[in-house]
């Protein structure tokens, strides 16, 4: 695969601060949890470099992005340098004033608000008391200003049985066009609370079946890049291929799961360039000191990450004898790192064989 001259998009952790402490937060107590934020001027200077590099999109995130008092100035810098932006938020700090400003730029692709429950009880179980109401209110403010609003539901032990109601709230009562899902993964604070929040194999089986059923009911308006819905689709395809003894379909059989490092790069709240916010431990350089284009094209760690797709799964002791090898892509490198301490390894979390050994069941129907 040929490498682009410069990254097409970046995820920017504009702050390390957040007004909440969700029990499954992947940020806090992980390597992205740094001791200071950058100044307005440092970000604005970097945005000029992004403009020169013809970067198209940035995702503003934290911590909680709306906690920054200078958010308008940062957005103005992004707009001035001819980029579009999205914001990831817990929704609780969105005001009419900032929403009007965002809408006025005409450059916002979407603001994503996290809603994890159909009621305060389920949403607040991991996010803290009072935050369901504030998040729904934040969502309403965005919609009032006609800002494309997206919702992400993180599935965990306390809301896995609330999925029907969540879909009803978001798709019927609030009439959103759709929402996306993932699940609490073993990173950051979640590592400390894993027993309490992470899905068991049984929970995962139930969530997969429920989400597939809901997608039939709601015309595929629920999406996922990770978590039970994504796993259901991928694992059912793998099982079908195994049963029918199909030939391997490229790029399966190799560590090919993540293609992010071919199109984007991320920045930690302290200005350190990293391959992905979930892999904040890999430090590639520092903004405004190191040249972004040169880091993107030449950094040995990034080059090594881009070599992952050449590593066959059969080389791993972990995969020895597994019948899914020709249909498997090895899963997320960040989860492989957080679980095993190495990125160049299949992720145990994405492993179908392991899931079945733990008593997990795939849904019956395609």
């Amino acid at each position, binding site marked *: 695969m*040929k*490498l*682009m*001259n410069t990254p*097409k998009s970046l995820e920017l952790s504009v702050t390390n601060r957040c007004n909440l402490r969700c029990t499954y937060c992947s940020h806090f107590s992980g390597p992205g949890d740094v001791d200071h934020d950058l100044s307005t001027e440092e970000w604005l200077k970097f945005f000029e470099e992004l403009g020169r590099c*013809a970067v198209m999109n940035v995702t503003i995130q934290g911590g909680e992005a709306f906690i920054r008092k200078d958010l308008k100035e940062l957005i103005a810098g992004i*707009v001035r340098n*001819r980029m579009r932006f999205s914001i990831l938020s817990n929704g609780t700090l969105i005001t009419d004033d900032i929403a009007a400003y965002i809408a006025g730029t005409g*450059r916002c*692709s979407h603001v994503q608000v996290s809603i994890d429950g159909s009621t305060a009880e389920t949403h607040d179980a991991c996010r803290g008391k009072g935050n369901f109401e504030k998040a729904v209110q934040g969502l309403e403010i965005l919609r009032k200003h006609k800002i494309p609003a997206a919702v992400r539901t993180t599935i965990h032990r306390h809301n896995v049985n609330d999925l029907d109601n969540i879909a009803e709230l978001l798709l019927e009562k609030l009439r959103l066009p759709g929402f996306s899902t993932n699940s609490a993964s073993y990173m950051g604070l979640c590592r400390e609370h894993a027993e309490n929040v992470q899905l068991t194999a049984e929970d995962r089986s139930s969530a997969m079946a429920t989400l597939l059923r809901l997608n039939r009911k709601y015309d595929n308006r629920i999406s996922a890049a990770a978590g039970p819905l994504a796993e259901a689709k991928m694992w059912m395809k793998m099982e079908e291929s195994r049963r029918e003894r199909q030939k391997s379909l490229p790029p399966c059989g190799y560590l090919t799961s993540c293609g992010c490092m071919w199109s984007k790069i991320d920045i930690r709240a302290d200005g350190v360039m990293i391959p992905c916010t979930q892999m904040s431990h890999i430090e590639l350089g520092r903004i405004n000191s190191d040249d972004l284009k040169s880091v993107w094209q030449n950094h040995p760690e990034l080059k090594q990450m881009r070599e992952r797709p050449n590593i066959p799964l059969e080389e791993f002791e972990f995969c020895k004898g597994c019948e899914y090898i020709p249909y498997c892509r090895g899963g997320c490198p960040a989860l492989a790192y957080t679980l095993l301490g190495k990125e160049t390894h299949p992720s145990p979390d994405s492993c179908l064989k392991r899931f079945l050994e733990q008593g997990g069941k795939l849904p019956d129907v395609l």
Partner: protein
Amino acid sequence: MENEKLIANPTIVLREEFDDWAVLFDPDTGNAYGMNPVSVFVWKHLDGNHALEDIEKKLRAECKNVPDDAGVFIKEFIADLVAKGLAGHKFQNA
């Protein structure tokens, strides 16, 4: 019209990729358009100093194997850019 100088919309981003191919990105709409090397050459000359025929002349002078009908391609390409609001004719004082 054909002698009028052409100018690119300054909001539009040219992302040069590998092998002289590129993408034109309109941040206001989010639309992106793939560009072949000839289109990139034309885009880079939409600087307010060149008219359509100047660009064709330069292309023939600077590039090898330019097809006979390149002028038609350039004309259509520019018309398309103007229709999409990605470029326009430079305003000239009388």
